[in-house]
């Protein structure tokens, strides 16, 4: 069954949101969503890395299939994605220091998280073509950013609330994520 780009995007963005429905990228989601001002660059940086990962994975996959070395896929993905991100980081540092300053500190955090690897693995498993892969990566990144931004603004508001002492911290974040995930269930079936 062929999925259109729009469908793939909507699916990755809302209906099967990486964080809220697929359980990918939860650690940064819980960890970085305390403040809006860190959430936004984190989201943008993640989207960027996902895109890089998606491109790498697409290339590697063709190469490995050609060589008949599919069993090395995982190890190749992780090594190449990590080094490409590092390379991009260095290039950024050299040619766009302002952009680097905005995103740079987040890049090393992201290189090996499961949302990024997830993009690579899922697009391989679903046999997406080039355009589909890119759409998927951008959609997933946008969905991740959306969830992160919503969560951060809610958590900022809760800073001003009298949240009971036992609930403060990770427990509250998880419950919030649960409620958001409940709300996002409304989008189920949207991308079809």
């Amino acid at each position: 069954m062929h999925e259109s780009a729009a469908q793939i995007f909507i699916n990755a963005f809302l209906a099967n949101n990486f964080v809220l429905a697929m359980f990918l990228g939860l650690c940064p989601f819980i960890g970085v969503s305390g403040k809006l001002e860190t959430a936004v660059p984190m989201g943008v940086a993640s989207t960027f890395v996902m895109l890089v990962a998606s491109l790498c994975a697409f290339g590697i996959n063709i190469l490995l299939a050609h060589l008949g070395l599919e069993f090395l896929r995982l190890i190749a993905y992780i090594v190449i994605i990590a080094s490409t991100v590092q390379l991009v980081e260095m290039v950024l540092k050299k040619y766009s220091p302002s952009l680097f300053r905005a995103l740079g500190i987040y890049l090393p955090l992201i290189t090996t998280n499961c949302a990024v690897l997830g993009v690579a693995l899922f697009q391989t498993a679903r046999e997406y073509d080039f355009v589909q892969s890119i759409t998927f990566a951008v959609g997933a990144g946008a969905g991740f950013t959306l969830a992160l931004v919503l969560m951060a603004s809610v958590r900022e508001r809760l800073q001003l609330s009298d949240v009971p002492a036992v609930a403060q911290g990770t427990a509250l974040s998880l419950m919030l994520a649960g409620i958001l995930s409940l709300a996002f269930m409304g989008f189920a079936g949207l991308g079809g």
Partner: protein
Amino acid sequence: MIDVAIPPQTTSPVAMIRTLGLVAALCGFIIVAAYQGTFDAVQENKRIAVERAVFKVIPTAKAIVEYFAAPSGSVTKVGAGDTAPVGSIKFYAAYDASGKLAGIAAEGVAKGYSDNVRILFAYDPGSAAITGFGLVAMRETPGIGDKILVDKDFLANFPLEAKLADDLKQLAHAIVTVKHGSKTQAWEIDAITGATITSRAVGRAINDAAQMLLPRIVPNLTQLKENNGPPRS
């Protein structure tokens, strides 16, 4: 010259590369060993899984053969290690104990409530009908979506008429899912109340796959029938 006591590097590049090489070699060895070691078991597992799935939808089957249906309309047997030609569709021909063609099984996929629903359906060439289906994978809601496997009314939809039109290019009647209680035709699927979306997905998956596959298979039925099943003990 005064010796400035800042060692530029604690490890020499040669040592670094040597170690990395060693580790990579070790890892490569482990992976290859694991791959080789499990290869047969995995293949066997996959084969058994496919067989089981096909045997489930075609209860009389005792053996299966994998085929490709090429866009040109020809069907070819799949040998070990063959890769699918472009645009071809894989399907399984199942043979009963006496080696007669018991049915044909193929995969279909359609978007369900939360993700794709992948099914394996059985086609009976004799009666030109879909006789049943089994699940390959889905992420539908437990308790709702999975009613398609247990709901008696729903299972009663099968056999489902799937005759080709006279030009052998497409189905005479597209297979459609209709609301619960309003099935009037043999090619209609009566949906499950409360799981209409998943029911629809099943209908669509079958229809899409059948529309593609049957025009390629039906003209070649004799070829499939002649082949008296794989030489298996």
